[in-house]
């Protein structure tokens, strides 16, 4: 792709007021102006990833479902399936949670924490540069005194060591 995405990005960032991140962004701009000769390789953009984050992730028709037939088996294989663990009942599917285990009604505050991530051996073998975990929580209906549903996100980056492998468990 021959579009100058770095320029576009820097423009967008400065417009959005993210130039507070001076070390990273200005460093990039400087590098772009001084270290990129005419023969620099064209920049690429992962359009599948961009399309997912600019629409797909909020598409209610794409909510994870084991029941709905889907043509994209590759995407289905990545769908997170949740299980619940309790000291008395052990591990079970979330579909086995009884309605009696829910609150009856009303507004509920949910505190959440991402505790552990343990990749399978096959995932550890991937030769990668970086990674990102994002967990979004949002309201389904608007609060009466707020104009819109609020959203909460937790975003994390996986920084890889020198050998460019996903960090091993003991390093977490």
């Amino acid at each position: 792709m021959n579009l100058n995405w770095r320029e576009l990005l820097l423009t967008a960032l400065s417009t959005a007021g993210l130039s507070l991140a001076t070390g990273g962004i200005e460093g990039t701009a400087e590098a772009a102006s001084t270290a990129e000769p005419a023969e620099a390789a064209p920049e690429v953009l992962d359009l599948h990833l961009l399309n997912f984050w600019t629409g797909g992730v909020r598409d209610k028709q794409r909510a994870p479902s084991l029941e709905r037939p889907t043509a994209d088996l590759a995407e289905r294989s990545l769908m997170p399936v949740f299980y619940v663990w309790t000291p008395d009942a052990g591990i079970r599917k979330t579909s086995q949670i009884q309605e009696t285990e829910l609150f009856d009604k009303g507004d509920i505050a949910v505190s959440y924490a991402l505790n552990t991530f343990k990749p399978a051996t096959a995932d550890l073998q991937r030769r990668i540069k970086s990674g990102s975990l994002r967990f979004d929580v949002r309201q389904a209906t608007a609060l009466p005194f707020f104009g819109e549903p609020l959203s909460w996100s937790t975003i994390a980056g996986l920084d890889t060591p020198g050998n460019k492998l996903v960090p091993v468990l003991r390093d977490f």
Partner: protein
Amino acid sequence: MKDYWGSSQRAMFNAGTGYWALNLFVQERPHESVFDRILKLGQKITEVAGLVGVLGIPAISETALHATDRMYGILNALDARRTHYLYKAADTPLAVTKDGLQKSPGLNLTDVQPLYLRSGISKYIAVPWAHTSAFEQRMGKLTLKQNYLVPQDSKDESGPGLEAATQATLADVTYLVLSTATTPISLA
């Protein structure tokens, strides 16, 4: 061994319903991304030790969320040679109360069973669908210790013994453990 995400965040579900979305990907790229630099900068500013920087965005509006999504998408898509998802999901409907489950305000439940969030404190384990068969074959003999899955007969509660058990358990399964605590509030 330690819980590296650590701190909890709090969201408020009015009428007992909501959504969540879990996504995790790793990338092949020729150089460090701008997003990585931003995270590292945040890491330096907050002096958070360790390999992982965490950026929390509490309570932003729907409009701001879409702008954040777009920015996040551009930052991560730029110069990414290959992206491998480990988890990929759009918003998943949640039911936190019986009333919310029955009335489903704001949820589109066509072909979708909402995920129930239990009252009180719970631990949820997320497994990619491709690994669920291997996981379900063994989950009856597993338990959680220090937020890692280990055999139920594992005696070590911490230290090298527990670490060895976690390494040896479910080597072919990717999983993530998420804690939740739900409490009634009044937003009226």
